[in-house]
């Protein structure tokens, strides 16, 4: 059930009416939310709801046990980790590792004629397993209170606005909101509707139109693709993946807001980042902070010397890449970011040892932002390419194109560029505006609250017009991050 479908509109209208009818009664409200979320999830494939229930049940019990004094806390945490990571390993990675192993053995001349298990990847599995894992680890560490209401916990795991593609919510943020009595306010409803419309525009107009060009370019064999197609294809994908994922997030936040619940922001103008560390503070924030808190820091973070820090960074990003999908392209994407982060850290250390500060000169900042965007796009090529061979072939074409200006004299270049720019332009404008306006939580945010509000509404009005005026390429296209 996609957010931009009429089925979802009917589903949400029903849930919204019942939710606000029951909002004074916490238990019935939680039961409604849970059942609605399970129904929402079952709409994809009811069989996988069992996995959701298993994860919910195990982590609820583990959370309760972890809160008891003198219980064998390590074992309960181990059980939670084993079940959740086991589900993830089985359904997401088993086929991949079996196939990779078979390929490796075959290349060594050994017989490895294993049939693929063809395990179907349950939608949203990476998101809800990370969310519940975060819960048990937080309870183990004493940073979150265990839920004593199974319906509250079930609603936390399966909360339908963010179930299949995040944001990955922390127990300390979402559980209390679910337990509280929400207030039905016009401000929340309007703000929710505004976010939803903007998300709808990002997804249906910007992302889905760019997807057509991207899909078109990435099926062209590397020996036939033109340099301008490689460059525009990668640029278009950079726009597509942001518009698709942040569009989903906007819709999720908007829907939750209409239920009186505030979810975490997941993006903060990532294409205006300066350096990889800044990029990861702005891109898929809920995942990057999850990886930081539950992987990088437990590995030792930056507390065990420079060399170990670099290794920890590389491991974290490698696993972060693998989290996105069971394919070597994702591993390479993660490794690319890991190495880039390590390099930046090394350069920062060197600069600090020389007593030099990072320049805040506008020109240098702009150059840094542009260079970061180029590197991010290069990484997106790894992410989007169907294989590492294709990615390398495309890079070669781009390099050869750079060395041979005549290859750019393609009459199709202007038409393709106009198409990509038409949809990429608003994406860069949105991020530039976001970067220019201080966000809530910053020192100067209060002074810019009105500007943020006015600009936000203007964008929503524009989005609404664009939804009717711009072409719709693929009305039923799923979100990219559903596959993760």
């Amino acid at each position: 059930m996609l957010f931009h479908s009429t089925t979802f509109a009917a589903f949400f209208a029903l849930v919204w009416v019942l939710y606000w009818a029951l909002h004074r009664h916490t238990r019935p409200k939680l039961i409604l939310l849970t059942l609605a979320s399970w129904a929402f999830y079952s709409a994809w494939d009811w069989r996988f709801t069992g996995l959701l229930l298993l994860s919910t049940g195990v982590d609820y019990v583990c959370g309760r046990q972890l809160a008891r004094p003198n219980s064998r806390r390590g074992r309960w945490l181990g059980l939670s980790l084993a079940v959740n990571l086991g589900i993830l390993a089985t359904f997401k990675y088993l086929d991949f590792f079996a196939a990779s192993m078979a390929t490796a053995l075959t290349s060594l001349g050994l017989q490895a004629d294993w049939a693929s298990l063809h395990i179907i990847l349950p939608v949203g599995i990476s998101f809800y397993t990370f969310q519940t894992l975060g819960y048990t680890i937080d309870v183990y560490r004493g940073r979150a209170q265990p839920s004593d209401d199974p319906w509250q916990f079930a609603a936390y795991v399966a909360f339908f606005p963010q179930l299949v593609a995040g944001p990955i919510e922390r127990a300390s943020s979402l559980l209390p909101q679910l337990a509280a009595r929400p207030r039905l306010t016009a401000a929340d409803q309007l703000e929710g509707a505004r976010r939803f419309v903007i998300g709808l525009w990002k997804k249906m107009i910007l992302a889905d139109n760019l997807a057509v060009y991207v899909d078109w370019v990435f099926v062209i064999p590397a020996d036939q693709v033109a340099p301008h197609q490689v460059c525009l294809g990668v640029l278009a994908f950079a726009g597509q993946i942001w518009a698709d994922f942040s569009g989903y997030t906007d819709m999720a936040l908007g829907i939750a807001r209409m239920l009186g619940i505030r979810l975490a922001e997941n993006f903060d103008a990532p294409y205006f980042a300066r350096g990889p560390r800044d990029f990861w503070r702005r891109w898929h924030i809920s995942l990057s902070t999850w990886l930081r808190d539950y992987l990088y820091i437990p590995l030792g973070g930056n507390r065990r010397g420079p060399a170990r820090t670099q290794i920890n960074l590389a491991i974290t990003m490698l696993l972060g890449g693998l989290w996105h999908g069971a394919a070597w392209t994702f591993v390479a994407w993660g490794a690319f970011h890991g190495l880039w982060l390590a390099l930046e850290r090394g350069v920062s250390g060197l600069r600090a040892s020389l007593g030099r500060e990072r320049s805040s000169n506008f020109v240098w900042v702009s150059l840094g932002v542009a260079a970061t965007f180029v590197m991010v796009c290069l990484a997106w090529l790894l992410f989007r390419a169907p294989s590492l061979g294709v990615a390398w072939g495309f890079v070669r074409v781009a390099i050869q194109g750079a060395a041979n200006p005549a290859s750019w004299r393609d009459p199709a270049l202007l038409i393709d560029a106009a198409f990509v720019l038409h949809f990429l332009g608003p994406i860069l404008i949105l991020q530039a505006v976001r970067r220019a306006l201080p966000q809530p939580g910053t020192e100067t945010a209060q002074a810019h609250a009105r500007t943020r509000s006015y600009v936000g509404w203007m964008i929503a009005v524009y989005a609404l017009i664009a939804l009717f005026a711009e072409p719709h390429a693929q009305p039923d296209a799923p979100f990219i991050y559903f596959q993760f």
Partner: protein
Amino acid sequence: MPASPTPSAAPPSADSDRTRSLLAAVATLAALACASLVPLEPLTKNLAGERVAYRHETYELDPRFVADAGPRSRHASNAQGLRGDVIVGRDLELLTLGGSTVECSLLDEPDALTARIAQAAAPQVQHPLRAAALAQAGLPLSELLTELEQFTADRRRPDLIVGMFGANEAQAFFNHAPWVSQAKGAAWDVWLDPASPFGTQGRSQTYRGWYQPGNHGGFLSAPRAAYADPRGWVDELHPGHVPLLRAALADYVTSLAALERLTHDRGAKLVLVTQPIAPWSAPADGRGWAPFVYAEQGQGFLPSPDLTGKLVEAFNAQTRGFAAERGLVLVDLAVELQGCAACFYDQWHFSDTGAARAGAAIAAVAAAELPNKP
């Protein structure tokens, strides 16, 4: 001593704050509007008249039936409504015309007929060819003429136009023969294959709607079922059909003449290609079967494979005769691919193998018609 506040450090008034916010909002709107002014509209005219920029289609095929097309076949129609890359200005050298058999909608882009012609011809003309397919499933030549006229109305000047027709002309004859629309009980009703165990309702399932994304090859099931029982086939034409067929053939020749004139006016050379058809294979034999994509649901009759062959051959004979009469170059693909079961995934449409063979055969003749360019 504390510094005295300067005027610039004073907090902004509510009015100035509101003005600044409004200006920021208007500036944002203006920037977004500017981005939307990047021209897209001229690119959205395609054959179907849909308002799309690029159209991307993915067909899912059941590999049990379509062994060499791959489980997912995808292609895009570009902003000009053509299959393939965007072609502008005078760089277009080769344009193929036809219906779904030319479009090759179920083949991946590099495997489609037009790409195969371009690939095979490129070494002979010693430069890469820019080729495009002006083709749409179900369109007979008479309807393609309008599209070609529009497409070449401005500066687009292909050097060579390759046309392969016959399938949709025969199809139109099956579909639109007037007896179909007669009231029930009229004389021609008998030709609605009353012996068919499937009936009109069952047959309507065999019509359009098969080639939909996400149907996992299910489109093949209905025609396989329809053709599974020969009792539903119409083996020969009713004597009353013969003048209708003659009229259809004459119309086809008139369209060919119009095509030749238009091609000449646009300064292009014309190569005609006869329509090949797969040898009959019973549905139970395992080869995929999507025999007839009817233009309108619930109409037409179910010609036997033999009758289908004869009707297509009648149109091919007109193509041969017209080419000979006007001195045009002809590629007799119907003869070239005769008996090649592996060349088709159903009765009409090329498999990868078929598109490659057809592309090579056409390129061998067409390359000589293309001007050599440095």
